[in-house]
């Protein structure tokens, strides 16, 4: 399945600069958010949204999902 990923803020730096945080990944069925984080070699603590809604890292993804990842910030 294909997952459309958008990395926000500092997480964009895990992709080449011209990508501006956007990439499409092909993953096996049943893949979870955590696997995307791993595949992109993201070493920071993240929060996620799938199709605009907050999602846990163990959330199972579906084909064509829009996945957004954000750096986790405790305060702000």
């Amino acid at each position, binding site marked *: 399945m294909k997952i459309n990923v958008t990395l926000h803020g500092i997480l964009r730096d895990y992709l080449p600069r011209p990508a501006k945080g956007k990439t499409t990944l092909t993953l096996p069925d049943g893949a979870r958010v955590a696997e995307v984080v791993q595949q992109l070699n993201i070493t920071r603590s993240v929060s996620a949204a799938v199709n605009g809604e907050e999602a846990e890292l163990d959330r199972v993804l579906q084909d064509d999902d829009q996945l*957004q990842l954000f750096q986790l910030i405790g305060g702000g």
Partner: protein
Amino acid sequence: MPYGYNGKILHVNLTSGELTVEEPPESFYRQYLGGSALNMHYLLTQMPAHADPLGPDNILALSVGVTTGAPVSGQSRMTSTAKSPLTGAIGDAQCGGFFPAEMKFAGFDAFIIKGRSPQPVYLWVNDGQYELRDASHLWGKITGEVEAILHEELGDKNIEVAQIGPAGETMVRYAAIINMSNRANGRTGMGAVMGSKNLKAVVVRGKKGKKKFTVANKQAIIDMARYGAKIIPESDVAGLGKYGTAETTGSQQVVGGLPSYNFNSGVFDEWEAIDGTTMYDTILRGADVDKQDLRGRDTCYSCTVRCKRVVEITEGPYKVDPHYGGPEYETTSTFGNYCGVGDLAAVAYANQVCNQYGMDTISCGATIAWAMECFENGKITTDDTGGIELKFGNAEAMVTMTEMIARGEGFGQLLGLGSAAAAEAIGRGTEEYLITSHKQEAPAHMPQLKSSLGVIYATNPFGADHQSSEHDAAYEKDFDSYAERLKVLDLTQPQPKRSLTPEKIRYAVQTQYIYSAMDSVNVCQFVYGPTWQLFHVDQLRDLIEYVTGWDITVPEIMTVGERRLNMLRAFNAREGIDREQDKLPEKMFKKALKGGRSDGLKVDRAQFEAALDEYYRQNEWDIETGIPTRHKLEALDLGWVAEMLKI
């Protein structure tokens, strides 16, 4: 000369024009560390009770801390404290930039300003010398113009200027003190106090080329600065530096914590248009040639995080001059999502107006958002606004209203009193839409989700504030990321989401003592702090030791924070302000949020009231009144405050 501080405080009587220098002993500096706690010493000992905030009896205290000016990240901060014309209670606000360090180099730790000058003046402090100078020619001018004139007049481009804009002169109740034309002592109307005193600016300059600042252990500070610079890329503040504080917009949106439409919703569909990443890609200076990291970021003295924004817009209706900086998350929120405005150029322009005229962007944007909700509900009409359709989402109306407030024109004059006073003047049920605590507009974090922050909003002596404690998430679901650091504060038992258990309150109270101390030492809360910041609390301790040579401990630092909090609280008690005023906006209890992840959420009143009891109990304050007890004050070496309060 002592290490870290000058040992000199300049007292300025604007009524008589008399300037005197006080040289307090070392014990005084160790008791307060500087900043807010030091300022409170003078407000409590020298200001009469019930002084008119805009009268000569009010005292405006400006001070730096013992570490200000050390060559390391996050130390150049200055606190301004006075009775607030916005809240009628204590007012307190911090700024960064280069002014604080230069003030230290100019030879003073604090300026204690009283009285009222018969004509506009500015205070010129140059390498230990000081004088009041005529400012008639500066009155009415915006910040950038004043800076340019003063550079010329004093023949030195390296002076630092903390000034009021025209909004401070006309005493907009949330007028700010601005330095560098883009850094603000924003909250609680300190600029209005300065304006009421006819003081246009404070200008400082240290000895040219030679910084008069000695520290106990220079090598340790250099090592700390190097270490800090080295760990930034992997740290939690890397994104803050690169994309600015508005980087956080998206993560707030996803959890439903992005206050939108005057806090009616926690989500804003157009959030991506105004977030930090978009700002980086579009309007940061240099973005057009992909050089924004070099040209679109600014800093404070000696800070390698470089989180400040420099925006340049040369085309379209909203042109922005990079001299006036760029918006923070709080500003993109109040002018953006609070008002339903997804136009980044309009938001950046409103930010510029605030920096030119000297206004707090939070209270300004939030007051407009409140007026928008009143308008949407027919409580305010075009008859009031002079024909402006003050509707959510109307960027042009938001910008026009910002300018009208800044210039004291038409309906803007009323909004310049702040939303709580404006609601009182208008009536018609407009108070129903207020989002104020202690008459101060709430910043862009939501008590509906951040429950202990709600307790801080309600109880904080200078009104709703987001930088007075660590927010809830770090002691909830995100705990694992910060466990090691929180252990230093004996905070080891994370709590469920949105809980207000005694343990959650303990987290709020203990981190509030840290934040309170940081506003006294005067350090940046992005660089030092209990969880995600660059340096943790132990390293703040190290810094104080390296600078002053004192064998200080974390508990001692926290005691200073607690002392300062009790002094603020005691000041309010003397003014007759007690638990009665410790409230969250009614709207947060009554009206459920709409949309997104926080749909349906309200603050639970019974849970909240019980949490207040617990909060006072843990602070050892009187639960009925919320006033500090004699026992507590004496334990903090504040027996004299108890005497003053006759408790």
